[in-house]
């Protein structure tokens, strides 16, 4: 695709000036290994300086550049133009989040919900550091994959349950909650479980798998949510302590 061009339809909206959002169409020369982030950078550098978007690391580990690209939330830096299989690219801001300007969304609601599950480890006071849980012991639960979350918000933007209910905690926060609830050294597991075991917590998930579909780290938050549901039931029966 070296000497080709692509047509990029980019969502433009400045809440302080525009009454309604619009799409601007730009024609952009394709370079080798071009990512969507390169496309928006090209627009900003050479065509329209006022285009707003967010990015940082450019290698898919900071989770800043999530955008809604050709029908799916994806990381702009990890989405190759050639992988889309089309010469027309539609770039929109991440859904379900308020727009600050153009492609930059306000992640505040996402992180407000992240806070609600108390996303940090609280050790049991009687435990002396370092606590050893052997990898092969029964106490060690499988959470390795779930820890890879980079809080990019792709799952949050893809989830229809978030779209239809503002109070739903969303896949990322629940996935984080599971990694902590599964940690036997944690002292507020039951409290955490009570925070997620509400109708707008785990029970709002309807196994749509949109989160798993779009996760750039290939996590399956649906699985974490199911594990939380299981523990919520166990806790109600007094089995989970």
């Amino acid at each position, binding site marked *: 695709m070296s000497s080709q061009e692509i047509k990029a339809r980019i969502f433009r909206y400045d809440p302080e000036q525009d009454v309604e*959002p619009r799409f601007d169409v730009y024609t952009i020369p394709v370079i080798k290994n071009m990512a969507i982030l390169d496309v928006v950078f090209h627009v900003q550098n050479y065509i329209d300086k006022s285009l707003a978007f967010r990015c940082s690391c450019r290698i898919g580990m900071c989770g800043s550049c999530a955008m809604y690209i050709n*029908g799916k*939330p994806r990381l702009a830096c990890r989405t190759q133009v050639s992988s889309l299989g089309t010469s027309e690219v539609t770039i929109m801001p991440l*859904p379900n989040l308020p727009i600050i300007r153009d492609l930059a969304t306000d992640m505040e609601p996402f992180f407000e919900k992240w806070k609600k599950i108390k996303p940090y480890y609280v050790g049991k006071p009687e435990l002396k550091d370092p606590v050893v849980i052997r990898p092969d012991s029964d106490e060690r639960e499988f959470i390795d994959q779930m820890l890879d979350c980079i809080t990019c918000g792709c799952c949050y933007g893809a989830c229809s349950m978030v779209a239809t209910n503002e109070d739903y905690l969303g896949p990322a926060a629940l996935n984080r909650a599971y990694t902590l609830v599964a940690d036997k050294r944690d002292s507020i597991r039951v409290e955490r479980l009570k925070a997620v075991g509400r109708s707008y917590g785990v029970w709002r998930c309807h*196994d*749509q*798998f949109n989160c798993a579909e779009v996760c750039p780290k290939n996590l399956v938050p649906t*699985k974490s949510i199911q*594990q939380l549901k299981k523990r919520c039931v166990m806790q109600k029966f007094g089995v989970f302590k």
Partner: protein
Amino acid sequence: MSNREMAVTPRFKTHSQVWSAVGMWAWMLHRLTGIGIVLYLLLHATLMGTSLIRGAEAFNATLNTLMTNPVLHLAEIALVGAIIYHGMNGIRLLLFDIGIGFSRQKEIFWVSMAIGAAMWIFVIISKLS
């Protein structure tokens, strides 16, 4: 505007969804068939109620009118299809609820749909023959 102020101001959001994934369609169809089956059950209960409210003859007459209508026979095939879909996808969802098959959800969907389609075709053939 401070971050805090911005967070409480209602601003434009998009609600675009992921329509290219099988899970979204499976869910949508599950909802639609579910609502359809509930409506059918209400109609069914109403029909059965006529025997209690208006007696045996009225019930027989109503049933006769309904069951000689070819359109309703086709609707019955659709009803069986909806129940098979809802049941097969329901089994898929139950598997997830007991913690099985998260990494293979699409394959499980298509396998359950293949079994469901076979069942539906069997019903259609036996009804039409």
